[in-house]
């Protein structure tokens, strides 16, 4: 059935809750209201007591979920916008990422923090950021970002099955931007494995989240013989797929919605030169947002990567 990403995520949550009674959904407005983006719609009615409206306190949502997970539950926290995960940063960095290590593997946290992320919907301040690198840098977390409805369902179900904590970021600009065929059946897509979306021979384009669509739009406008890799998971990072491609193409750009300094785009570029410099014919170019706090929405279209910026990077990397 064709559906958009919100419906695919909703179906994943529904199937996970039907399958495992310890799975709970908790967060601000996730119950009666079904979440501000409607991802949890209907779960409150279908699973009484398991889709829980919490007090408005992000640190408490994650910290209490840590306790629930320590005592046998599988909480799926929704933080209303990724820009508000910082209120819970202490709990995420100090506890979510560390309990397995601290307890020598005795106490584990099979739980998820979901949050809509990234820009493109003319939202208010703090509603449009791309914080994936913060959470990769926490170490001890898995960090996932789907690029469309099919992946969203499979990756979310894999995250729920995963025995370790997962930060699951949902690019909200593609929540309802397009529909894809999504199987009704329960299925998972493995974490830590990138997806070679399209095969080519002259260039490797590494991307994830909503930027996959931008890359595809760029290639539709300006066809190019390129491998396109959707990372799907930022931690663990599947560099094997990236390096295999680069050994074939010799050129790479990384397209990400993050700001540039200290970004995953930078990390991937660094790892390409560390492990494949003899295969490179050109420097690796990062296409990102600018190194400023996300601007108010009147200017966001200039901040976010666009077709022109991706095109310019391709031209540059091909000019060597």
């Amino acid at each position: 059935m064709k559906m958009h990403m919100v419906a695919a995520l909703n179906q994943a949550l529904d199937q996970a809750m039907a399958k495992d009674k310890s799975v709970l959904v908790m967060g601000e407005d996730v119950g009666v209201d079904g979440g501000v983006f409607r991802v949890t719609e209907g779960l409150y009615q279908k699973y009484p007591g398991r889709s829980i409206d919490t007090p408005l306190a992000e640190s408490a949502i994650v910290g209490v979920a840590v306790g629930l997970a320590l005592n046998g539950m599988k909480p799926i926290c929704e933080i209303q916008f990724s820009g508000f995960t910082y209120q819970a940063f202490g709990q995420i960095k100090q506890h979510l990422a560390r309990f397995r290590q601290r307890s020598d593997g005795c106490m584990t946290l099979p739980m998820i923090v979901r949050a809509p992320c990234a820009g493109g919907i003319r939202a208010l301040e703090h509603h449009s950021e791309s914080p994936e690198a913060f959470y990769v840098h926490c170490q001890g977390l898995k960090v996932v970002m789907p690029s469309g409805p099919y992946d969203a369902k499979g990756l979310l179900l894999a995250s729920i099955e995963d025995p370790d904590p997962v930060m699951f970021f949902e690019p909200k600009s593609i929540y309802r931007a397009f529909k894809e065929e999504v199987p009704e059946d329960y299925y998972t897509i493995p974490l830590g494995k990138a997806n070679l979306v399209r095969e080519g021979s002259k260039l490797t384009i590494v991307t994830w989240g909503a930027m996959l669509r931008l890359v595809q739009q760029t290639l539709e406008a300006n066809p190019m013989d390129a491998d396109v890799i959707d990372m799907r998971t930022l931690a663990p990072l599947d560099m094997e797929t990236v390096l295999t491609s680069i050994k074939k193409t010799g050129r790479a750009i990384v397209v990400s919605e993050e700001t540039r300094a200290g970004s995953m785009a930078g990390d991937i570029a660094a790892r390409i030169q560390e492990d494949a410099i003899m295969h490179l014919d050109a420097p690796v170019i990062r296409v990102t947002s600018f190194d400023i706090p996300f601007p108010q929405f009147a200017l966001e279209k200039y901040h976010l990567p666009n077709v022109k910026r991706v095109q310019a990077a391709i031209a540059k990397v091909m000019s060597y």
Partner: protein
Amino acid sequence: MVLIRKVIKTFGVEYLQILDEEGTIDESLRPDLTEDRIKEIYHLMVLARMFDEKLFKLQRMGKIGTYAPIKGQEAAQIGTAFAISKDDWTVPTFREFGVYLARGADRVKLVQVWNGDTRAFHGDAKNLPVAIPVGSQALHGVGIAWASKMRGENKVALTYFGDGATSEGDVLEAFNFAGAFGIPVIFVCQDNQWAISTPRKVQTAAETIAQKAIAFGFKGLQVDGNDVLAVYAATKEAVERARKGEPTLLELLTYRMSDHTTSDDASKYRTEADVHAWDSKDPVLRLEKFFRKQGWWTDDYGAWVRSECEKEINDAVEKGLAIPPPPPEDMFSHIFAEMIPDHKRQLEELKAELGDAQ
């Protein structure tokens, strides 16, 4: 006449003391504990006092890492932990050595833990490992107790923190959450008067910490935290309330008789006189005074307890310090359920580095 300005609610805060400083008991409040049980408590308190002194000395000798002493807080820690059952949970901070002792934690592993070896946490399923970020663990206690309630298990979580932690947002968020959902959690605030060098009065203008519970819709109680019978009785009552779905905040008035940690020098910010003012309230001595009044005390009994504790401590220290440190590759063993490719690579890097060194 319609009153448009009136008092709509008034509140009070209870204080509980059962044994006074002279060891005299208020019989009307005496908890349901036999002589043997109270002697068990005394034994644990002496063990805690002596073990604490030993660990402090071991750090000074460079044999273990930084240690946070509990001297003066034995009644607060043993009295609370003694009042719950094995299947209940504890959520301790870094200054809860006495709680671990009372919960029956392996003595050898306690030495190992304070020597920086996480392998010692094995088998301690209902007692969380030491939480360092102040107050952050209060939320975990709420979640643990909530999961028990959801499954109808009737288990409680004793969640520890100090007076300083009550300034932390996480503690207040934990209070709020527990009140809003009726969670069977017991918040144990050991009001030991000091957060490193910052005195209690700097943390809050509130006259008591117990009263903070009122704002969140549940009971707060101030207890003489150096009176182990009062601590025990208050915890028992809190457990009863918890089983009915009501959280409790216990403010246990006590005093940190030692430094913040072995890295601290409390003489920089407080006087000897400040500390000595609490000598007469000492929780261990108070119980001894009570025993004398009950006719339970003999010098032989006192000496026997001390010698039993000494044997237990020496045995644990000897065995604990003899445990070799974990192999370096252990660093990567318990980050994820399954080792990720990057960790495998980095482990190889480490092995190569270690190979070079040999």
